[in-house]
């Protein structure tokens, strides 16, 4: 009944698209057939994810570890979503803890807000941002196994994730990502790290030097999606050389009014509230919902994985 009330129709398209369900910034991609599900009030969380058995379900969170109310409130939305959409893992795109990193800070800025998820055996896979001490790589609950950069196979579907350390892109790491992407025969190659290769936010913006180093490697080796943070906004970039980039940097921090609404590379941007991303992969398709601190879905869509010929 809830589903009937919330959804008008269930047709989704197979091409990257953008539409907005609320105020925010949006540019229409190429015209596609699409369905705009009805949304409930902001107090009621609605999602547009198929929630299929056997799919890979995950969330993405960045720039979150403030220990403040907004972080906790967004965490509550994640927990609420998990009750209906049981994601197995969360990707962290850096700036996991702000300020001091004594044991009590790990409790306040990570273990307490996400305790219900941790108790439900949701695994968090972290990358490090510029506010993160290097030794977070050895923190058990970040699942980095002592490494600054690493990869892992997702628990479902044919997906491999690659975590990079973008504050220190030394030659060994660049060689590593190039070699590992080449070796990987996974259908989906998803990379995550802190500094955005594309971002319209004013505070930091696109890291052009890093883009020049990493983008050719991603393009040549079939990367489909890249998640980053650093700018304290949510943004989905129009596909760049067939790769979809997300900035998911408002997990606790927020830079209101920071986005460049006139930029042609923005597909969807939102800088008015904190956001996390929920995603689902089944076969060749990925569905995503960006959900705000008040439970509103401020961006949603699907994209297809890149096929390498």
């Amino acid at each position, binding site marked *: 009944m809830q589903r009937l009330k919330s959804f008008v129709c269930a047709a989704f398209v197979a091409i990257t698209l953008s539409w907005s369900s609320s105020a925010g910034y949006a540019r229409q991609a190429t015209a596609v057939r699409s369905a705009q599900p009805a949304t409930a009030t902001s107090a009621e969380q609605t999602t547009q994810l198929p929630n299929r058995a056997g799919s890979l379900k995950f969330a993405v969170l960045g720039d979150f570890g403030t220990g403040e109310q907004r972080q906790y409130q967004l965490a509550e939305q994640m927990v609420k979503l998990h009750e209906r959409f049981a994601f197995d893992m969360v990707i962290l795109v850096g700036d996991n803890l702000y300020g001091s990193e004594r*044991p009590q800070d790990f409790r306040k800025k990570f273990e307490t807000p996400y305790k219900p998820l941790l108790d439900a055996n949701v695994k968090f896979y972290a990358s490090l941002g510029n506010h993160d001490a290097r030794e977070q790589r*050895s923190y*058990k609950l970040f699942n980095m196994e002592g490494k600054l950069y690493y990869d892992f196979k997702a628990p479902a579907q044919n997906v491999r994730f690659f975590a990079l350390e973008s504050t220190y892109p030394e030659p060994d790491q660049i060689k590593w990502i190039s070699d590992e992407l080449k070796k990987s025969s996974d259908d989906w190659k998803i990379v995550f790290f802190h500094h955005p290769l594309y971002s319209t936010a004013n505070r930091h913006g696109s890291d052009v030097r890093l883009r020049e*180093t990493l983008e050719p490697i991603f393009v040549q080796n079939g990367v489909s999606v890249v998640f980053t943070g650093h700018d304290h906004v949510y943004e989905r970039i129009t596909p760049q050389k067939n790769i979809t980039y997300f900035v998911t940097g408002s997990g606790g921090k927020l830079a209101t009014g920071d986005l460049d609404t006139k930029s042609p590379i923005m597909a969807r941007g939102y800088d008015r509230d904190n956001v996390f991303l929920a995603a689902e992969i089944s076969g060749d398709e990925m569905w995503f919902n960006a959900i705000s601190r008040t439970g509103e879905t401020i961006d949603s869509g699907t994209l297809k994985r890149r096929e390498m010929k």
Partner: protein
Amino acid sequence: MASQNAPTIGPGANGATVEFRKRVEDYLALQQKLDKSIGELPTEASPQQLDAHQRALGALIQKARPDAKVGTVFSPEMQAFVKQVIGNALKGPAGGTLRASILDENPVNTPIHVNGRYPDTIPMSTMPPDILRGLPELPKELEYRFVGDRLVLLDVRAHLIVDYVEDAFPV
């Protein structure tokens, strides 16, 4: 935790970088010896273990290097080499972008001390790949970072400043 091999000589190898390599090796040997003495940090550590290990190692290293000062690892010749590498990178067509990225969230006047703890109040600077390519490769236990206009040699296990180059680039 397995350590990286000793640093290889980067581009522009000369006497300064050879001597730098030797001094880095000496420091690394000290760090590894002291790290062993307090037991290896597990790769799935609790926050208490992370904090205790880092501080214990830091305290031991500080005690073992009471006379460490600017120039202990970066010889005057190596300091000149570092400034040359950075200067060349900043002179290029992307120099303005590089400088902005170095100074992003990198406050200029933060006090630091050789053999002192890296300030907990400031984030890590982001190192441009161009500059990292030009400097000698380091073992994984050490990193180059900027604090303001100083290029710091950071012990990432102990969170200590091993040495630094003052005025590494004009701000």
